[in-house]
């Protein structure tokens, strides 16, 4: 099976360690991966802002670039949802490539049937459901199953883990007051768990949460699920 890595643009540029962690875990599970270097962005920022023609151009590009892969794995529920749920609307049809694009936790649990990846992370963590992973890809238990198998990890649920962090891409700069208030509500909920780390499938949510935590000098750290799973 040829498994391609789809590393979304902001992970490539801002959070490369998330991509590297995903590769580490996949290699540990003896999955052969490759990285098509032509990839750039899935087009979600344009799509969500209403520029569907621009997004469609990038959708076609994605389908070409990943045409040879049997499966495409990405450490982002959001970008995976863009490809699997929204490309078919842009392109007028689903293709093998769009249908076989998976979020990392989803790929591990649903396709490899693995929940214990041999990780160790002795910390108290809380899990934030990313909206796209949860409501577009319907991944609720899969990330938690993986976390529960991590040695030493204590998972504490926050109040309303399913409430949006307020990022929403261009929404967060178009309506920063709303986005900030949502961020504040989310962080309050995270704080009440007493967790040292907040974990999510999506680094965009974590960027939003981390931006608030750091500005307020709060002691909680953010970490992607991939990085937790890569820890030993």
């Amino acid at each position, binding site marked *: 099976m040829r498994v391609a890595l789809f*590393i979304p*643009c902001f*992970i*490539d*540029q*801002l*959070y*490369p*360690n998330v*991509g*590297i962690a995903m*590769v580490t875990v996949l290699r540990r599970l003896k999955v052969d991966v490759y*990285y098509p*270097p*032509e*990839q*750039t*962005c899935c*087009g979600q*920022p*344009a*799509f*969500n*802002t*209403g*520029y*569907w023609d*621009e997004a469609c*151009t*990038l959708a076609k590009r994605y389908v070409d670039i990943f045409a040879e892969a049997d499966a495409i794995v990405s450490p982002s529920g959001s970008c995976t949802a863009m490809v699997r749920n929204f490309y078919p609307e842009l392109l007028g049809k689903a293709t093998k490539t769009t249908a076989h694009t998976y979020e990392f936790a989803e790929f591990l649990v649903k396709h490899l049937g693995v929940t214990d990846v041999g990780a160790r992370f002795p910390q108290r963590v809380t899990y934030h459901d990313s*909206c796209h992973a949860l*409501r*577009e890809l319907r991944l609720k238990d899969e990330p938690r199953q993986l976390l529960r198998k991590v040695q030493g990890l204590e998972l504490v649920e926050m109040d309303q883990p399913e*409430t*949006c962090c*307020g*990022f*929403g891409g*261009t*929404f*967060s*700069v*178009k*309506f*920063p*007051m*709303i*986005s*900030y*208030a*949502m*961020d504040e*509500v989310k962080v309050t909920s995270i704080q009440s768990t007493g967790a040292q780390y907040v974990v999510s499938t999506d680094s965009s949510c974590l*960027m*939003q949460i*981390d*931006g*608030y935590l*750091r*500005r307020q000098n709060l002691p909680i750290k953010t970490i992607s699920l991939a990085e937790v799973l890569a820890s030993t």
Partner: protein
Amino acid sequence: MTTPTLQQFERDATAKTADLRHRAVIQKNIATYQASVARGRVRFADWPNARSRAATIKWDTINHLDRYLEQFETNVLANGGHVFWAETAADARAHVLQLARLHGVKKVVKSKSMTTEEIHLNDALEAAGVRAVETDLGEYICQLRGEHPYHIITPVMHLTKADIAQTFQEKLGTPLTDNAEELTMIARAKLRHEFLTADMGITGGNFAIADTGMIALTENEGNARLTFSLPRVHVAIVGIEKLIPRLEDLALFWPLLADSGTGQLMTAYSSLIGGPRQEHEADGPQEFHVILLDNGRTRLLADAEQRDALHCIRCGACLNACPVYKNIGGHAYGTTYQGPIGSVITPHLRDAHDWAHLPYASSLCGACTDACPVRIDLHHHLLHNRRNAVRRGFDNPIQRFLFRAWLCAMLSPVRYAVAATLGAFALRRGWAGPLLKPWTARRDFPTPPKQSFRDYWRKNERRA
């Protein structure tokens, strides 16, 4: 592009999101709602299937609306009622005023109706010298305060008991109390007299039933029942999308609406109005009029992609699920219908340009879509509205240019890398630029690392 409606929205949203007392009140009231919905939901043997069935019935209704509307009209007429087809809000208002004149109406009692809010009926009545009294407790409080409903189901969700007591003291001169029953009794004492002396009762309609020509009303206070049965004339103003095909469909829709609206199995009062008083009947109005309101709904009906937004039964579940609503509150939207459904339908029902910003005021989290009892794909419709706004040229030209430039960069890994390097250079020096400023004003943006993933891969992983 910037419009006065957008500027107003930004001002109101800024004020409300900074108002922590408002946030606390709303979160508490919505948490109470959510707890009772959760308790109520278990009474459905198969909730997902109930939603699907409701969506299927609504789909059939909306896609054959012409037929069902005519069937409804035929049956209302056969029952001795009257039907008026109002194409616009002005048509509906004019017809109500004409009926008021014809019957020498001095005072109208109203039960809760969002369609009358939509057509600004109270203002028109007052201007014509007819006193309009809201009789739903929440709406009555709104009227005393000179406010519009904050929520389509719970008009004063933003108020505490203390706020209401204060309103009553200021407007009615009653003593302050934090006892809900005492507050209710104050309103009841005032309203009883209004019911007995009103000449016309105006209601909305939760459902209009095609095969019997009936209007179904749900309520918890008994005020709607008094509104349509005591005065001489009853006028029901109903959006054309409120049709359901058969009386038996209420077996599903009544509990569905009660559960999603308030977490009840059924509301305290459920009424079916089949026409004016018949000879053998003891009470009821002498005349029964139904105004079928279009007011932009047929524009939405003509849009096959978004037509299902007309499935809405106005339960308010999407508002209660919406994190944006919970932070900006109902008034900031500036619309009759707030929250996700309002942001979907308002650009269709009203000026598309003036309201183009509302679909953008969402993180697209999708909680609304999951909450909707008739499975309207709300957050995807917000995306459709955004696309339509761009296609119609309502977008900011600078933004348009930036997305074209961005696309140009994304089409080539080399240009992408150059753009990323420039961006990282700026960010490391703390230049967020006007694009990121709104975000970085109150949050720390991550510092781009020295090495991107693609650099890492090129150096460490690339194999022949």
